[in-house]
């Protein structure tokens, strides 16, 4: 997501830097310059802070569940009551037949905020599970999948791009066609197909065994389908860089392929990689939510923000909080990552046009 900002992101000139420092001109590393630009972007920093807060809250899911809510993320409380302002309240309303009369039930209790001593702060779901606890555990799972898949995806894309871009020729052709092949499929459809297939029986090939309910499945599926979205632009940058004089110089000095790739090319695309990484986390969290909503991502009873929305959709009229609260969590997280990612891109290289495009 691109954002408009009124902050001045123009490159610092040497004179400006000197004036700013009030002394002699000193050499500054690109990273320091980037940090100087980033720290002036208060919007990006604000959203980074929001993301950090979300991450910290999710990391505190266990202590919150144990010490505040007093229940686990998958513990149902059907048929139970809790105390609110000294009165007993049903977690899920009772219904059924009394004599010949039918009473509709099954309506979970709504958000209690702090009126019930930390229980059901965001209400309960249809199985009487604490939504706030599931929201935090769900966030933890969504973040694990989002960040984990971003790491794996970026790493594979980077290595493939380096190899393709540096060696060129048939190696480049094979890797480029691999990117094209994955690119040819609509991302979500490919992810759904893989996620559904793997979520039934897991993955048990090539000496690797992943059980069907494992978080590794959505993590790896999302990593795989998004590789070309990072790999292709990076490959393009490397193809351009390898023609530069410094590569020629390194080669002339006897540097081997691996050294050129990792000591010469990698530092020159590191800023792009970093920006891609920040942006793809947001993208992956959204993809995970979509997959889980459709039943092809995180598997029940484990929560994720996507599964929480799916669980809540059938109760949108009588218990709208079930879908709305995790929806808000996704929006805030993705917004924070995208705005920070844009800020990071502007800071690292204001001329760059790094985007995650589908």
């Amino acid at each position, binding site marked *: 997501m691109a954002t408009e900002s009124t902050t001045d992101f123009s490159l610092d000139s040497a004179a400006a830097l000197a004036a700013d420092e009030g002394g002699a001109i000193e050499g500054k590393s690109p990273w320091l310059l980037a940090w100087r630009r980033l720290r002036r972007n208060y919007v990006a920093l604000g959203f980074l802070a929001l993301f950090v807060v979300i991450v910290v809250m999710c990391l505190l899911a266990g202590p919150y569940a144990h010490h505040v809510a007093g229940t686990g993320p*998958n513990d149902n409380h059907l048929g139970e009551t809790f105390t609110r302002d000294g009165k007993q309240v049903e977690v899920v309303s009772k219904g059924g037949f009394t004599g010949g009369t039918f009473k509709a039930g099954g309506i979970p209790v709504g958000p209690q905020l702090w009126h019930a001593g930390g229980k059901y702060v965001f209400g309960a779901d249809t199985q*009487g599970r604490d939504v706030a606890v599931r929201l935090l555990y769900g966030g933890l799972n969504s973040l694990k999948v989002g960040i984990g898949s971003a790491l794996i995806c970026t790493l594979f894309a980077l290595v493939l791009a380096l190899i393709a871009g540096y060696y060129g020729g048939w190696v480049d052709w094979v890797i480029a066609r691999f990117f094209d092949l994955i690119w040819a499929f609509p991302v979500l459809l490919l992810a759904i197909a893989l996620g559904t297939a793997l979520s039934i029986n897991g993955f048990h090939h090539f000496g690797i065994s992943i059980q069907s309910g494992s978080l590794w499945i959505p993590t790896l599926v999302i990593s795989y389908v998004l590789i070309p979205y990072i790999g292709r632009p990076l490959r393009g940058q490397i193809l351009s860089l390898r023609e530069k004089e410094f590569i020629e110089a390194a080669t002339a000095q006897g540097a081997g392929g691996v050294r050129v790739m990792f000591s010469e090319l990698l530092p020159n695309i590191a800023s792009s990689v970093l920006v891609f990484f920040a942006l793809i986390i947001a993208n992956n969290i959204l993809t995970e939510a979509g997959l889980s909503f459709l039943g092809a991502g995180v598997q029940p009873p484990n929560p994720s923000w996507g599964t929480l929305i799916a669980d809540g959709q059938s109760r949108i009229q*009588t218990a709208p909080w079930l879908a709305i609260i995790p929806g808000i969590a996704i929006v805030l997280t993705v917004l924070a990552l995208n705005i920070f990612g844009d800020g990071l891109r502007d800071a690292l290289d204001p001329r760059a046009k790094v985007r995650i495009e589908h």
Partner: protein
Amino acid sequence: MKRRLKLLRPVGAVALLAALALLAAGCGGGGKKSSSGGSNAGSSGKTYPLLRVVWDAPDYMDPALYYTVAAYQLTNYVWTGLMGYKHESGPAGAQLVPYLAASEPTISADGKDYKFTLRKGLKYSDGTAVKASDFRYAIERDFKMDSPGVGFYSDIQGVSGASGFATTKKGHISGIIPDDSAGTIEIKLDNPRGDFLYILALEFSDFVPSGTPASDQSTKPIPATGPYMVQSYTPSRSFTIVRNPHYNNQIPTMPSGNPDKVVGKIITDPVAAYQQVVSGQSDYEFQPVPNDRLPEAQSKYKDQLRIYTNANTYYFALNNAIPPFNNIKARKAVQYALDPNAIISGIYGGLGRPTQNFLPPGYPQYKKINAWSFDLAKAKQLVQQSGTNGQSVDVYGPNEDPSKSTTEYLANQLTKIGYKPKLHLLSHQVYFQTIGNQATKAQAMFTDWYQDYPHPLDWFDVLLNGQRITKTHNNNVGNVKVPAVDKEIDALAKEPQVTPAVNDRWAKVDRDLMVTYATTVPYMNKSSTDFFGPKIDMSCYTFGVVTYWDYGLSCMK
């Protein structure tokens, strides 16, 4: 014998019945209100031009293939067999009456020989005459098409064995002897079956013209013998059912129907289906009112809503053949660990009645069991005593609600009593096939059963007889095998008459399997809803225990 579940979601079936009932209401104006929802064989004088319904998707519209309530409820007025059910509300609706047969059959003393005579002058909707040999053709067509109902006919002479028709699919079934000139049909059985007349009332026994292709004819409607015929059917979209022009009240034991025409939209989403009726675009919805909308329907549309509980049982199957549930204490622990009232109230919005019987209420063989109470402490104690504490349990269920939430509830309760459950939620399309395969090694499973016909054999013989366990397509998914009870089921299968003594023996089978051996965990008889538009005259509402809402007997205000 291989049978499939009739319907996982009964609501859909109910809606289909409603549509049929409306269709059957036939031509004419608004008509008069009926004084009751009782028997209305023949013309009722309440005909009306059009019934608009929203229906669940039928699996097929071919009597050899369909096996869902959605299809059955629609077409029980279209294709008929020798026997059928009385179109009446309440227990009377479970009574068999001759449809194409002129009268009840003559049955030999040993219960192995049935002789029927067809009614005179029977015709299909295309005007051709109905022949006795059409019945044999229909059964043989079932086998040629690998119909899901072929298992019901395994006791007819010439069907089973290496040279039987089920294997060779050549020649004719020797145990079915039709005489076209006399209009008689003789059926010889290898073994007597107390439920054979019910089997002859199944859709797989419906007459089709000889020469009907032995392939799915859903979109090329087969000529009908009932008061209605399928005019058009577009899978997943729509259907139109109209009066059979050659019917001439040829089956006086069934109503000729009130609606002249039934036009159906196929909508599988219950919320969308509900909205169709609320917005006035439909007179009936087959799907159950979603739990989310039930309070609204109860308060705003109380007069248009009917809640019913038909013959079904929802139960958790525990794999009796492998640990931990090959241990009776472990199985008893699960009985104590579950709170049926909590499941019904929370997950099903109250639409259900708790049960500990396998057989549903309403059967003359039903004797209420009250052996278990929700007691987690006792359940934990039993798990400890069984020595199975801490074992992992593969729990299987469908991935759609409310089945999904019910399975999650089971898994959570197993956690609470000391097991380590692993949840496997699968698509409906593959669910029963998967748990019915021994290779899956499912240990605890969500499942349910809706009767094919109102006889205990359709429950105990199909679902819990240890001699019916198969490697694949296993209906006895819990691998329940209690030899003494199996022997009793086999003996009861041969009882030609349902006497009070026989009923008591069936009740004991129920108690033995559910309590003494605690083989299975029944928890609910699911209730469902029929929801109608404001034009429908609810005084005509008729609900058959087998046929669900009877659209043929519906009428308009």
